[in-house]
């Protein structure tokens, strides 16, 4: 390991860089802090307030209680964890397999296939044909309707392919000379070298279900199968629908509907935030390709 010596310019740069990073943290942390403060605020105080929030107004957990009291919330957590766990595994498997093929230089059909795959990012048959397809495949009202149709994200697969391509061809050749087949090359060499990318693509896939309710809303009927996001959305929407009832007779619930929105964001986000450092450790540190060569 080489020990780096720093010049004066290096020190100046580092100080400014650190300050810049701190500034960036301050401005990007704010929206989330705002949500956190709002969710902890007293509903009546919150709606009487305007502009930015620097701390919770009369801290209360009332909004969280209202969200957590919903009977469906734990079912939602359970389903989402299943979807994220099983879904992301399938996503990563399919994406790696596809990206591996597309990163090969040999096969003639690679380019046309790549083109046809890329096109699908821009054309879409629309909601109704997709709905009919899911129904005809007997996926309707099953949790698989949220997993299988989205097995591959073209965008992620293209990113993955780019990473695979950037692995030096020499490594692969020497592996082939040693008699390695396609699977060996994929698993032993390419995937090992691409762990940072796989971690990130995995994160992208995992965050997807945490942030989306739309397909669940269309493809699921059974409350027992709803993912967390749909449960939370229903809590928000239904509080919205009742605006007029509450407005006239139940002022307190009306005010609560605002802070509930923020509480749901926190409830939905915290698990993925907890998970993040674990994923992060795979890509903050550089890889030593040399160590694999030896």
């Amino acid at each position, binding site marked *: 390991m080489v020990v780096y010596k720093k010049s004066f310019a290096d020190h100046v740069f580092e100080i400014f860089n650190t300050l810049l990073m701190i500034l960036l943290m301050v401005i990007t942390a704010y929206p989330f802090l705002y949500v956190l403060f709002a969710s902890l605020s007293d509903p*009546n105080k919150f*709606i*009487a*307030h*305007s*502009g930015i929030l620097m701390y919770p107004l009369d801290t209360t957990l009332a909004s969280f*209680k*209202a969200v957590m*009291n*919903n*009977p469906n919330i734990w079912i939602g957590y359970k389903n989402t964890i299943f979807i994220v766990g099983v879904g992301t595994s399938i996503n990563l498997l399919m994406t790696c397999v596809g990206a591996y093929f597309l990163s090969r230089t040999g096969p003639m059909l690679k380019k046309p296939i790549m083109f046809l795959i890329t096109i699908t990012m821009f054309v879409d048959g629309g*909601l*109704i044909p997709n*709905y*009919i397809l899911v*129904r005809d495949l007997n996926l309707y009202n099953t949790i698989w309707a949220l997993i299988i149709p989205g097995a591959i994200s073209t965008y992620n697969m293209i990113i993955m392919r780019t990473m695979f391509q950037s692995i030096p061809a020499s490594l692969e050749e020497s592996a082939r000379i040693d008699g390695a087949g396609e699977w060996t090359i994929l698993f032993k060499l390419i995937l090992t070298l691409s762990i940072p990318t796989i971690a990130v693509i995995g994160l992208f896939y995992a965050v997807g279900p945490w942030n989306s309710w*739309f397909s669940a*809303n*269309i493809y*699921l*009927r059974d*409350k027992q199968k709803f993912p967390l996001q749909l449960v939370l959305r*229903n*809590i928000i*929407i*239904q*509080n*919205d*629908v*009742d*605006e*007029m*009832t*509450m*407005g*006239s*007779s*139940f*002022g*307190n*619930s*009306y*005010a609560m509907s605002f802070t509930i929105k923020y509480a749901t964001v926190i409830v939905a986000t915290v698990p993925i935030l907890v998970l993040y450092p674990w994923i992060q450790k795979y890509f903050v540190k550089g890889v030593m390709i040399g160590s694999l060569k030896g």
Partner: protein
Amino acid sequence: MKKRLFALLMCAILMVGCFAGCGGTTEESKTETSKTETSKTETSKAESSEEDLSAQPGGVPYEAATYPLADGSVELDYWLVINGAMSATMESYADVAFFQMLEEYTGVKINWDHNTSDENFSMMIASGEYPDLINWKYANIAGGVQALLEDEVIHDLTEMIPKYAPAYNEWMEANPEEKTAFTLGGLQYQFVNFNSRLEDREIVYFKILGPQIRQDWLDKVGKEMPTTTDELYDVLVAFRDNDMNGDGDATDEIPFAVGKGTDQLRALAGSFGTRIDMHVDPEDANTIVYGPITDNFKKFLGYVKKLYDEGLINSDFAVAESAMNYITQSKAGFTISSMGSSLIANHDNLKLENEEYNYVSVPWLIGPDGYQCFIDDSNANPRSTVVSTQCENLEIALRWLDYFYTDEGSIASTFGIEDESFEWVNEYPTIIEDIKNNDKGWSDEQCIARYMLGPITFPMARDYRFYEQMNLKEQYQIDIQTNWNLATNEITMPPLIHTTEEAEEYSGLMTDIKTYVDTSYLEFIVGDLDLEADWDTYVSNVKSMGIEDAIAIKQAAYERAMGK
């Protein structure tokens, strides 16, 4: 926007019961009235039951329902949004005590499908598999409800309702205005939610949008309650020039708080006999005009421009999220808001923060030419229930739906089960207080909703006495109704029906026209366009974009609706 209108109308419907016939009376006399009303109901009930077997007011013979309607083997699929008060404490409507009783009473089992959204509706219709009963806001769907009728997704119930839903029919016959509003030129297809007063078979609507002012500020500057737009202007000037909120800064007052969407401003157009859309010509009830190109609108713009130029409205009125910020910070003295708005919902909470704070309603303002028109929201369409063509038990379905409009069903659906969730006290249906007790932190509303449909929107004739028992009795809100109801409906259009071709042509024209008009409207106010120099060009531009054709479409539909 649509959602807001919908909210407004829903609010109107929900407010009806409380204020019907009791505005301005003291509480004691109200109870008196209720008593006499109830006894009247009893009599009319007795009378009507004698006639029951013979004929409807319309002269159509029908067979009275006998309960149970079925032997328990009949099931109906009901697609309907679940109300938030209920979804917070239960899985589906099957858990409501009233529905459990109803299932036993009617012998009909309902399978509730509460997974509803705009997309779900489209998917459900597109998939070709419909539930028996579908509850939705039909004004918002492509091609309107006509498309559903034309393509035989839902039943035309014109013949069937008098026969199998006599109670609902009776309400419609007794309230011709509502009948016009809820049918397609007489074609019956839906069951709607309304508030009912059994004794005179009355469905009543209230104005749910109107002006409000800080009474404490008025007192401070020694002005009378404004009744005209000119008086309002004087009051606003006084608000601007004085340190109303007493913070030592006489310049931070925003006399008239206006939020994005500019609804607050637009509502004022009514005082000038116009609105920023199609409306009935106030001078000629047979003609439809497009408001934004009328001279009345020019006058209205002139007035608003004056308010803007002189700093009487907040300068960010076109983009401010809502007027609430200014109101809660005690910077504003006047606004126009809806019944369901946070201003009214939180009036008491805000008062706790600032005890001077006292918003009161202002009588609907009269414009310089004497107009006092309400800006209608007939475009809003509340949710209603229709019967799909895949319903195999049409007669039972209709009879089941009709139950909610019978004298007995109206009370039962509103208040739930006698002696369980309500009891008759001096012939007055009184909610039993005990049902509000719970150890789960549920609100009163959520508790009540476990027993009865009173707090929610459901196709039924909700008994108005439900609202008398909610905390709506404050003089504050009763005054609002008296004051806002001064507005007239003369420029309001009835719900109009278009053919698919008309709807397509109209939307094709109006998207561009509205884009242009909405922009010009604001540009006239902020001064990017000059009201004198640019008005004629503006009008001729709108005309060249085809407004005459759009007006003709509305005119034709209007004439059809008026039966000409």
